[in-house]
């Protein structure tokens, strides 16, 4: 295996572990999770919806043939989370830790996406040409 693929897999697993454990809190309606989603006015459907999206992202990240889509989905949801932390959720106490974790997942997904950029439909086409020159 090429070293870059190994790095990608490490990043994939980091993202999956962090997102995966947060699912438990979302799907069991843990009070902290409910509080956050209440603050941003998405309780309860938004919580479930985001949970489902993250679940799909995790599953996609676990297969090398679909990891790039998982990373894209993860990148999107985490970007949303970070936007939330900067606007309504804030960074106090436990929320700050959650925000940092979101940033870690965001970075991991970005790494995966960068390493696997040639798997992306359409975009890889543009990349191929420009990386030649």
């Amino acid at each position: 295996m090429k070293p870059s693929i190994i790095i990608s897999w490490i990043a994939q697993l980091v993202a999956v572990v962090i997102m995966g454990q947060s699912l438990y809190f979302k799907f069991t309606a843990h009070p902290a999770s409910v509080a956050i989603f209440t603050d941003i006015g998405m309780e309860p459907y938004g919580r479930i919806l985001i949970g489902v999206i993250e679940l799909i992202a995790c599953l996609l990240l676990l297969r090398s043939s679909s990891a790039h889509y998982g990373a894209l989905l993860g990148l999107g949801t985490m970007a949303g989370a970070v936007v939330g932390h900067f606007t309504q959720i804030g960074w106090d106490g436990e929320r700050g830790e959650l925000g940092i974790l979101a940033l870690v997942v965001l970075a991991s997904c970005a790494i995966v996406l960068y390493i696997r950029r040639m798997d992306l439909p359409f975009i890889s086409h543009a990349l191929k040409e420009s990386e030649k020159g």
Partner: protein
Amino acid sequence: MSAKIAIDLHKLAKTVNIAIPTLAVLFFLAGWKLSFYFHFGTVTFILLTLLNLFYTRIQSGHTLLRNFGIMGQARYMMESIGPELRQYFFANDTEERPFDRNARSEVYRKAKNIDSAASFGSQNEFDETEIKIRHSMYPVLHSEQVPFSLTFGEERGIENAYTVKRPFIISAMSYGALGEHAVRALARGARQAGIPMNTGEGGHPKYHLMEGCDLIFQLGTAKFGARNEDGTLDDSKLAALASQDSIKMVEIKLSQGAKPGKGGLLPKEKITDEIAELRGVSKDKDVLSPPFHPECVGPQNTVSFIKRVQDLTKLPVGIKLCLGRPAQFEELVVEMLTQNIFPDWITVDGAEGGTGAAPKAFIDGVGMPLYPALKLVNDILTKHGVRDRLKLLASGKLISPEKQMVALCLGADAIYSARGFMLALGCIQALQCGNNTCPIGITTHDPELQRGLDIAVKSTRVVNYVDNLEHDLEELLSAAGCRSTRELSYDHLFVPVGANLGAMPPQSSSTSSSSSSSIFA
């Protein structure tokens, strides 16, 4: 007009490039003040903004993307789905290549046993290029027809002469070009239909042998399956193969229509343990398929090589070639006469033949098409009085009965087809044979794609295809007023001047020693 459209597009692209980040900001504000759900839009448009910046500022390979950003991308997207769009919506029934939809549907119907009657009239042009069959005023009744039978090797009176009872043979396709399921479906179908199958140059025919059909072992230029380290023939390995019950004949491939005069390279990355074993090559070196047999560098040693293989295998041995310069072929025939050694058959492969992968220049531009090549080969053999010393096989898009009839009239004794049988297996002509991504699971080794190709079902399709081809050929034969395919001749064809058979201009030849006596010099 077109200038105006270009300017509009430019404006549109500029608008879009400004709109995307603007929308990102607006969605952000709405997400912040109205409802968090708007942030789905925020995130999407932020990502699009980044992508757009990359296209217009960072990458430089694509002018269109650098100038127009994401809007330029739309063009590439449309372009990339163009083949599918054309195939599904816009392509005429007589337009696609290599096989138009009419031709493909005909094979599908035959393979699925669906009646292929058409209504109202032909979709063909009836122009000056179309060869037609000239029927007789006095058709022959089916009951008067003589069953087909062709014995290879009878001319030499060998013990292992091999008889086929139907005029069809599955042409060379290697395990490698085809996946395991396809090979086994074809082999099982061949057994059930009672026709032989060529192994292709994939080496030891492990999967072909599993189904117990009659096989023609192909000896390619790299001698896969029977080679020494240096790529020359290993006599003992070939003899061992030839002693297998299922292997009835051996075909020496001199050249192939899709890439005559072109060898190949099997990169070491592609050599799995299995392929190394079957082909008899080492795993840690690229393997070169030379464009010709190292043993055959002129007419003399080519003929001697045929003799060597005949003696070794004790089986009928044929050669397969795509005709290049007819004078060189005539030289070879003269040499056969001199040495009094003839292959048991010659396969003429037309330049329109298929392949797993070959350079486009060769696929499109090299070699003689089947009909004129077949006619020339037949004429040259006849001229030298040796047509009855061997059999002639023909291949090159002979997937429908009327095309096959033409080849039979031009001198072929039986019909070889590769892609006809691929279509019978369900090939949709996705043109992916060289990419391991065949959506039908025929030319791929991907187990997920092969899963869909059910060996039992598809082998029945092969049988149906053969049954229905034979039925149609018998009808055509009876219309032509013939009792057997042997009675067919050039006279049964209507050849308009525009057909590539019509008038072949004389060509001077620099290589032939016998050019003065040559029929086309």
